[in-house]
């Protein structure tokens, strides 16, 4: 088990420094950022209690080589999806600023991170504030080697993901065969005018606990507004939103659709079937019930053998090692979660296809 290769669906490479970022910007933002730094949105909650793991060399986190040694080599990664750090653009109201920052970040990571190791793959940043420009950015970068996903922010948008507002972006992602990587944007959640569906959370603890509620709402929005009927080959990964709520949502969507089908008449299949075919969940932070067999039951309810993929969230505070998956899941399921499901989802060559002919398959 220890030698099975890992596909990690969520790694947070550091942001460039102000001086590094400025080199990738044109005016007027070049001078603005040199003078004032990037613009800020803060949800007014004490997120510093989270942050990064405290045992890492903080001064080294800006160096991609440190990620190679502390993560890729240490855990025998085959593939690590870089999703970056997003606070300066998620929910920011000025679309031109956001577009400039996204372009600069994407170019910076393509220049400085991807060449360091072939195992690094990039989730590109786009401004959901401006779908037309977002489409141009996706088209600009889709053919860059090691660009493997498009990043959405789950928690800092006022328009739910099932809205037709996003159709141009979904069309581009489907056409260019890039999955969408949906991740929280906790620091800027306040741009939703509420950090939970009930209103503002008072603490990061409360906001972080309630984060899956955004995912429930976004999945219901996408399914019940027919996104996967309109874009049947669109792939979506739900990152850091938890897993245990999914059975409830599947049951409830299916039960109510039977009665209220006329309100989603374009759906040709049961809601849960779209989830199975188009959506994947990631493990981190793995839920921790008192009894491990309860987690096994949840995994069986959602067909984890096909729908769940591993993510570490390195270098963040709620990072999960690959060994965090409970053994009760069984070796076959654990291997599918650590590697095989993501291998299929990202359309990578299988391990068997990678092994030289007439050789023993080296699972390390």
């Amino acid at each position, binding site marked *: 088990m220890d030698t099975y290769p890992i596909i990690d669906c969520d790694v947070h490479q550091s942001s460039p420094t102000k001086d590094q970022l400025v080199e990738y910007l044109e005016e007027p933002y070049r001078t603005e950022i040199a003078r004032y730094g990037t613009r800020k949105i803060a949800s007014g909650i004490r997120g510093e*209690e*989270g942050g990064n*793991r*405290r*045992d*890492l060399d903080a001064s080294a986190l800006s160096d991609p080589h440190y990620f190679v040694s502390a993560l890729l080599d240490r855990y025998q990664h085959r593939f690590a999806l870089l999703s970056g750090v997003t606070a300066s653009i998620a929910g920011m109201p000025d679309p031109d600023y956001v577009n400039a920052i996204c372009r600069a970040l994407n170019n910076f990571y393509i220049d400085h991170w991807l060449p360091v190791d072939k195992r690094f793959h990039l989730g590109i940043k786009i401004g959901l504030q401006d779908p037309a420009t977002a489409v141009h950015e996706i088209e600009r970068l889709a053919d860059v080697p090691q660009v493997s996903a498009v990043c959405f922010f789950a928690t800092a948008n006022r328009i739910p993901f099932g809205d037709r507002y996003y159709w141009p972006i979904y069309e581009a992602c489907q056409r260019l065969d890039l999955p969408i990587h949906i991740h929280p944007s906790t620091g800027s959640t306040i741009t939703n005018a509420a950090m939970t569906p009930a209103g503002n959370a008072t603490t990061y603890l409360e906001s972080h606990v309630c984060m899956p509620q955004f995912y429930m709402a976004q999945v219901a929005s996408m399914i019940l507004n027919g996104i996967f009927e309109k874009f049947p080959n669109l792939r979506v990964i739900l990152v850091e939103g938890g897993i245990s709520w999914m059975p409830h949502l599947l049951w409830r969507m299916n039960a109510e659709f039977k009665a209220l089908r006329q309100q989603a008449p374009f759906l040709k299949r049961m809601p849960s079937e779209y989830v199975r075919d188009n959506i994947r969940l990631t493990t981190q932070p793995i839920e921790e019930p008192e009894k491990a067999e309860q987690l096994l039951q949840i995994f069986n309810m959602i067909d984890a053998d096909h729908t769940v993929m591993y993510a570490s969230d390195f270098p963040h*505070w*709620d*990072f*999960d*090692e690959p*060994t*965090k998956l409970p053994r009760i899941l069984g070796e076959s399921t654990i291997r599918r979660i650590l590697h095989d499901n993501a291998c299929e989802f990202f359309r990578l060559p299988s391990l068997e296809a990678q092994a030289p002919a007439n050789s023993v398959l080296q699972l390390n």
Partner: protein
Amino acid sequence: MAWLPLFTSEELPEGGMKLHSLGKREVGVFRQQGKLYAVLNYCPHAGAPICLGEIDHPITTDTPGGSTVRDFARPVVRCPWHHWEFDLQTGKALCPIAPRIKTYPVREEKGRIWIDF
């Protein structure tokens, strides 16, 4: 259990932590406000190197809306990975949960740090 010498007192200044291997295991000794604490370098949650965590002084509040105090007399170590809090003296978690860090009796004698391991 036996008293084992680890390192010299000079190697552990106030506010510091020093690791020491004992066979396959590793312990960390902390010096906080003149007192010594010895801890097995293993977090019971997910196996993180607990001794690399920060020292904190816990906040407690008697009742919602009540007064909040920070207990400077009670150092805790926060796991560097998931930030769980453990009392350095007792090893107990600050949340009412069973997992605890392993602590050892520790003393300083003749310029050397000893633990009962």
